[in-house]
Every structure is written in structure tokens, then in C-alpha cells.
């Protein structure tokens, strides 16, 4: 069995980088590490199928040595699906962990998920929505600045003949409050 050296080097680098990142404390890095290692393992399976470049399955009576081994590809496909599911779960877990970390010491005492937690959840969500608002305002402000500058330019050009003219900044701020 011959294998492509490039693939082997890529796999080794991915394993090394993956293990390194997996050992970090931050959960998002752990996730990245897991994805690197998982895909390195998929590459390992691919390498085990032999040299790349042969055509896929052709006909019933073709000589097995003339086409690529289809089984490792099926295995990789399954492994990718499993990794995908686990990654999705890890993302949810990281989000939850981040959410709890925001609660600080309260996070450890969240026990009654469906009763007391409802109040806490509201509190936290309002906190996050405040954050969102602040973020939107900041974004709006920067847009406002640009738009105001544009409006000023227009005003200079048109000399503002319309008394009902609404400043673009007002509209933007209003939208920010709604969300």
C-alpha cells in the first residue's frame, strides 16, 4: 500500500495542532482542537485507503486494483456526521457554560430549572438584551456619524429646504431600541 506523503504531513500537523489546542482552558479552543483531531483522524482513514487518484467504482467485472477503495470513504462520511453532531452539542454546551459564567456565583446555585430559574433567566436575558442594545447603539452611532456627515454635505448642497426633514440618526436609534 502506498500513501501520499502530503496527506501524512497534513495529518500529522493537524494532530499536533489539535492536541495542543485541546489542552487549553478555554472551551472554544477545546472545540477547535477536537475538530482538528477529528478531521486528522478522517484523513488517517483516507490515507489507509491507499494512493489517491484512482477512479471510483466502475463496473461489476472491473479489476479491484484499478479503482479506489470505497469503504474508507463511507467510514469517513459516517465519522463526519458523528463529529458534526458532537460539535453542535459542544457549541450548545459552550453557550450554556458562558451563560452560567455570566451569572457568576449565582450560576452554581441554579438548581430549580423550571421554577426559580425562570426569574433568573429573565434577569440574564434582560442583561444580555441591554448589552445588545449598547452594541446596537454603538454601531448606530458610527453609522449615524457617517450619515450625519453625508446629511451635512447634502444640507450644504441643498440648503435644507424641507422643514419636515427627519434626521437619519433618529430613525436608526429608534430601531435600536425596538430590538
Amino acid at each position, binding site marked *: 500500500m502506498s500513501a501520499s506523503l502530503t496527506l501524512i504531513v497534513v495529518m500529522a500537523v493537524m494532530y499536533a495542532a489539535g492536541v495542543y489546542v485541546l489542552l487549553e482552558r478555554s472551551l472554544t479552543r477545546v472545540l477547535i482542537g477536537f475538530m482538528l483531531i477529528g478531521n486528522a483522524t478522517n484523513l488517517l*482513514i483516507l490515507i489507509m485507503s491507499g494512493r489517491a487518484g484512482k477512479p471510483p467504482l466502475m463496473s461489476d467485472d472491473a479489476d479491484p486494483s484499478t479503482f479506489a477503495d470505497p469503504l474508507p470513504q463511507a467510514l469517513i462520511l459516517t465519522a463526519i456526521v*458523528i463529529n458534526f453532531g458532537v460539535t453542535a452539542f459542544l457549541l450548545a454546551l459552550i453557550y450554556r457554560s458562558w451563560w452560567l459564567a455570566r451569572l457568576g456565583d449565582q450560576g*452554581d446555585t441554579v438548581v*430549580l430549572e423550571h421554577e426559580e430559574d425562570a426569574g433568573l433567566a429573565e434577569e440574564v436575558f434582560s442583561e444580555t438584551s441591554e448589552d445588545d442594545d449598547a452594541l446596537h447603539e454603538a454601531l448606530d452611532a458610527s453609522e449615524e456619524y457617517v450619515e450625519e456627515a453625508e446629511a451635512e454635505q447634502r444640507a450644504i448642497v441643498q440648503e435644507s429646504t424641507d422643514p419636515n426633514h427627519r434626521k437619519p440618526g433618529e430613525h436608526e436609534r429608534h430601531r435600536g431600541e425596538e430590538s
Partner: protein
Amino acid sequence: MRMLVPLMVLVPLLGAALALVSSRSPRLQIAISSSALSASTIIAGLLVWQTDSNGSTAIQVGNWAAPWGITLWVDRFSAMMLLVSSVVLLSVLVYAVGQGIADGNRETPVTIFHPTYLMLAAGLFVAFTTGDLFNLYVGFEILLGSSYVLLTLGGTGARIRAGVTYIVISLVSSVFFLAAIAMVYGATGTVNMAQVAERIGELPDDTALLLHVMLLLGFAIKAALFPMSFWLPDSYPTAPAPVTAVFAGLLTKVGVYAIVRTETLLFPDSGPGGDLRTPMMWVALATLVVGILGAAVQADIKRLLSFTLVSHIGYMIFGIALSTPLGLNATVYYVVHHITVQTTLFLAVGLVERVGGTTSISRLSGLLRRAPLVAVLFFIPALNLGGIPPFSGFLGKAGLLLAGAEQGGWVVWVVIAGAVATSLLTLYALMRVWNMAFWRSDAELEEGYSSQYINTLVENPDDAGEVRTEESTPRLMVSATAGMVVVTLALTIFAGNLFAFGDRTASEITDREAVISTVLTEEATHG
């Protein structure tokens, strides 16, 4: 009768789908999951009877002949594992339903609990019925994926923390296993276990050794062998009581099951890369001793039991490392005993938590007077795990030690000494729980009774130190626990039959030629 094998997996899978669809009606979900698991128990019972009278069955999924398609293969060992795990799953389900009704589903949110629980069952059954390495990996992933969800049910801070440890460790072990499968495929050109077994003999010694070690590493993390066992006591105890009970009973045993298959079918003594018996002896000894020393200083009963769980895995590894017919026979018996007893103890501790309001023995007292039935339900499996004569724990350990003594050699005798000491220390740890939580009076606790030993106990880091006592103990939970206690007692009563069964199992799983011919020459047309 051959259709029973795929049904074993299909029934809980379909049940999971139905339970998910009917998430609006908790009663319907309970009906679906309990009937699915009852059906699995019956099917597993039939499979045990069938494999014991007719020998092992292999079935080719989708009618693809053996090396190309996926083979499902049930022999006595897997049938017995199927039966025990479905009995355990069923009684824990009853217990969880009882707890859910009493608490208004606070700890076990029903909508997601039932489908996930059935998926866990399906994953276990896939792992126990498969004759294909990659399908074994898929089974592991199904049951691990469900276990991630069950462990982090409710998503509290402590559970997320425990879940992160557990999930990252499990992912690493899965990657080891998958990489090992890739290498096995590269070396032998197949992932069918029987065909791998057939071709492994032609491999050079070092390649076979590498494959052997890679496979064992993946399984050893799952089975919580020393030094890969430290994740377990940090992750299991934080889950809801029924979930901990199921995990403790079954998840590590899947690893043990896979190790048995690896050692007997893929890498036997005589073949290349087969000589890992002595290292395994040392691993068994370290697992036994380190685990039980951890248990001896725990104040929290759940953590204490998690440490005994880790420790007693060592007994099974000892039996596998002996790999004599008697050793394997005793291992099979010990696996069955340990699944049931460990689950029962965790269920009983769930009851203790409800009666006493805590699981820390430094704050429990007078439970014998307050709840005599719970005390009995804890006492019997505790003695059983500690290895007191009439119970199955004693019989299993006696069988293992006898097998060890028969083989001899100084390494074996050292492990035997460690095993006896572990048994005594288990008894010590559990009897201290008995003395402090059940035997001492409330007055003693109030007076501030203290001794040197109690002051050195290590509390659970997540323990907030509170005592909640207003909870009730629903009859359903008590009867589920009582049912499991009866099962553990039945292991003693039918010990003769079980050891005879174990003997037939041992000779069956060591007869590799027969396994290979059953799986590979099975005609596909019957599937």
C-alpha cells in the same frame, strides 16, 4: 428467531422517535419508553435462551455478505449483556418515572429524558450485538452522545462543569478508537471483527502490538482503568440519581465488554501482539488499589460509590488478564454482578438523598430509625459489593481468586493480595457509610460528634452544605430499588446456573475458529 437480533436495536430506536414526537404528552412518553424497554427485555431473554441452546447467531444487515456488509452477531456473552442491561434500564426507568412524578419533573425533564434514554439503550444494544469494529464505534457514539445529554440534563453549573470533563475525555477516547480502526483497516483491509481476527495472525508482531495497544487505550478510557480513571468520580455523581445509576452500571461495562472482545477474539495469547497479559495485571492491580483508597476518604456517598466503581473494574480486568476459561467464566459472572449491584446502590443512595436531604455522611444520621426500608435496601447491596459470603459479590470474587490461584505466578499472587485488600477496604468504606448515615442517632450528630477519621473525609467540591428534607419517597422509586435488590439476590440463588452459563460462554468466546466460521460463512440470504 434471527429477526430478534436487529429488533433488539430497532425497538428502542423507534421508541425514541415516538417518544420525541409525543413530547407534549408525558404520560404517552412514559408508556412508550416503558413498553419499548419491556419489549427489549423480553427479546433479550429470548436471545439468551436461543443462543444458549442453539449457539451464536450472525445476521448480515441489508443482506450484504459478511466482510462487506455490517454483521450483527450475538453469542452467549452478548446475549447475557443485553439481558442484564435491559433489566437495569427498565428498572431505572421506573425509578426515574417515580422521581419525575414526585418532583414535577424537576430533575428529569421528561420531554428530553425519555427519547435520550431510549437512544442510550439503542447505543448499548448496538455495541453489544455488533460484529463489526466500525459499527461498534457507531454504537459507542450513539450511547456517548445520549450520555452527554443525560449528564448535563437541566444544565446547572455543576452539571455543565462535570459534563465538560466527561465529554472531552470521551471524545479523546473516541478519537483513539477511530484512529485504531483506521489502522486496523490499513493493516488488515477489513473492519469485520471475525475477518480481522482471521488476518491478524499474518501481521508482523510490532504492527499487531501497536493496533492492540491503540484499541485497548480507547476502551480503557471508557472502562475507567487506572491511570485513565480520574474523570469518572468527577463527572458521574453530579447527574440526577437515575442517570448516575445507569451510567455506573452500564457505561463502563461497555468498555469492559469491548476489552473482552479485543482480548479473546482479535488478539489472543498465541497470536502476534498478544502478550499484554502482564501489563494488564499491573493495570488491574493499580485500578483496584488506587480506586478503593480514593473511596476510603470520601464523605459524599455518590463520590464514594464512584470510586468503588472504578476500583471494581480492576476485578474484571484481572479476570480478562488471566484469560483462562475459569478466569473468563468468573469475569462474565462478575460483570453481571457488578452491573446490577452498582446500579442498585446508586438507586438506594438516591432514596437516601430524598430521606436525608443530602448525600454527605458527615451530615446524615438516624436513617435506620427514620426509613428502615431504605436502610435495608442500602444494606443488602452494600454487603454484596463488599463481598460478604452468601452474596454474588463474594461468589464472583471467589471465582476470580480461584482462577488466579490456579494459574499461579508471583504477579498473579500480588494482584490476588491487592484484590483481597480491595474487597476489605470496600467493606470498610461502605460500613462507615452505614455506621454514620444509618446507625448513629440524630443526637450524636447534634452533639457535634467528631473523630480523627471523620475530620479527614473529603467533601464533594460541589456540595453546598445544605440539607433538604421535605421531599417524599415515592412508592415507585422504592419498588424499583427493591426490584433491583431482588435481582442481585437472584444472582446468588441462580449462581450455579450462571456459572455453568459462564463456563459455556468462556469456552464459546475463546473458540475463535467457531466465531470466525459463524460470522463469515453465514449465508446472506437468510438476513
